[in-house]
């Protein structure tokens, strides 16, 4: 096996081992997305019985919540995978090893993908069996919306990891709270036209805004607008570049300040 792939594989294996020996972690991955989905599915049922709008697009709230969870779990997957190293005071061993920062980033992204597939995948399956909601039936474009949300989640996750390297576990709160700051801005459950006019340009800087707008168009009007997908992709490229750069910069800063051995303390 090529050595750099083997190193990334080792880091992914480390997270797979963690799940193998710690089933509450796996349960926790599935629990919240599942609970969210069920809650909003019942809300959706209620609204569709009382509103023509929701009768037309009964799955929109389920889609919204599953998509939001994709974004959130994507970010959390990166951040928690990194925090595990701080909790276990293992960052020093990793820093000394031949694992390069870019390989660490790739391993965090793959670990996040696995976590999201387990968590959101579980919720999506439950949505299918309990509420007859099928994501693939909305087409490949819809799947690409999910990919965009994942990439945006990774970007935020990497930026938060940069903070964790810089400030240690005192920055842990960002892992749980950061993304909720943008939730009202990106129109998860409502169109951004609802926002005050001065706030709308801010929401246009968030890739998820285009994804949720595109998702609603698919549901309410049955059309897939590729320009929304392309805008999300373009801004996401910028986001992931910034996320990676911040982490690499933070790692280099930690090398100057000697933070790599004692960051958990």
């Amino acid at each position, binding site marked *: 096996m090529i*050595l750099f792939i*083997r*190193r990334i*594989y*080792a*880091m992914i*294996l*480390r997270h797979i*081992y*963690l799940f193998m*020996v*710690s089933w509450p972690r796996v349960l926790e991955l599935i629990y919240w997305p599942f609970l969210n989905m069920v809650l909003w599915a019942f809300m959706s049922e209620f609204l569709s019985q009382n509103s023509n709008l929701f009768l037309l697009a009964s799955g929109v709230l389920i889609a919204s919540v599953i998509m939001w969870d994709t974004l959130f779990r994507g970010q959390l997957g990166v951040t928690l995978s990194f925090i*595990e*190293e701080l909790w*276990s*005071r*293992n*960052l*020093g*061993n*990793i*820093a*000394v*090893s*031949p*694992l*390069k920062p870019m390989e660490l980033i790739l391993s965090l992204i793959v670990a996040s993908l696995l976590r999201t597939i387990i968590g959101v995948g579980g919720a999506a399956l439950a949505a299918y069996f309990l509420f007859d909601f099928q994501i693939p039936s909305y087409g490949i474009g819809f799947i690409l919306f999910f990919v965009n949300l994942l990439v945006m989640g990774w970007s935020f996750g990497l930026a938060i990891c940069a903070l964790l390297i810089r400030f240690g576990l005192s920055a842990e709160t960002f892992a749980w709270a950061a993304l909720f700051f943008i939730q009202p801005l990106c129109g998860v459950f409502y169109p951004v036209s609802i926002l005050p006019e001065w706030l709308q340009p801010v929401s246009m800087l968030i890739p998820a805004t285009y994804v949720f707008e595109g998702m609603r168009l698919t549901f309410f009007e049955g059309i897939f607008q590729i320009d929304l997908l392309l805008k999300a992709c373009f801004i996401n490229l910028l986001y992931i570049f910034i996320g990676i750069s911040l982490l690499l910069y933070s790692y280099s800063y930690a*090398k*100057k*300040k*000697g933070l*790599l*051995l*004692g960051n958990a303390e």
Partner: protein
Amino acid sequence: MTNLPVDTVVSVENVSKSYGDITAVEDITFSVEKSHTLGLLGSNGAGKTTIIMMLMGILKSSSGKINILNKDIYKYRNQISKEINFASPFVELPHKLTVLQNLTVFGHIYGVKNLSLKIEKLSQDLGIRELLKRRVGRLSAGQKTRVSIAKSLINDPKILFLDEPTASLDPDHADWIRTYLEQYKNKTGATFILASHNMPEVERMCNNVIMMGRGKVIDHGSPKDLINRYNRENLEQVFLQLARNDRV
């Protein structure tokens, strides 16, 4: 420093490290020969761990030059990192993972060939075979140290950095670890850099010692030389004299 012995594996030339106005290490120069053990001695905050971190390439020096295995550590860290390793009770392995899982993960990271055989041999040598399926978090301090040593030897390092390897161990376990490391060094020709507060340990294991105080080298030499030079009975007395003089 220009006429280094052929077997020099660590060369440190006029290295300093500052954090703003605070100088952690000031103008340090030394070298270490292959198969030797260098002890870094000093009070808390003397700069021992700072030096080790710079030697491993995970802390940038403010000035000076560090060559490890005849290569600049900052330019060639990726290559050098495969040839070195590190053990410290202050850096731990993931607690939830078993010993075997931890060794497997680090074996892959270091690109170890025949990893299963390597783990089998290390666990046999270090007496941790029966611990392989136990979680690291459930091990005693002595067992954790042996596992940490196993991790640090997984890639057969040419240079091993040890930061207080026997801290928090009882005398019996500490002696076992020292004996094992000495045997390992004799067998493989590895070089050790040891930071420690334990004077008998340094006296026993080290060919050379660097006494540090406030980021500077106060004195250096073999443990025997230092004891004779200061007309003391052991290294602990030398250390106490130097540490107290430095404080004054």
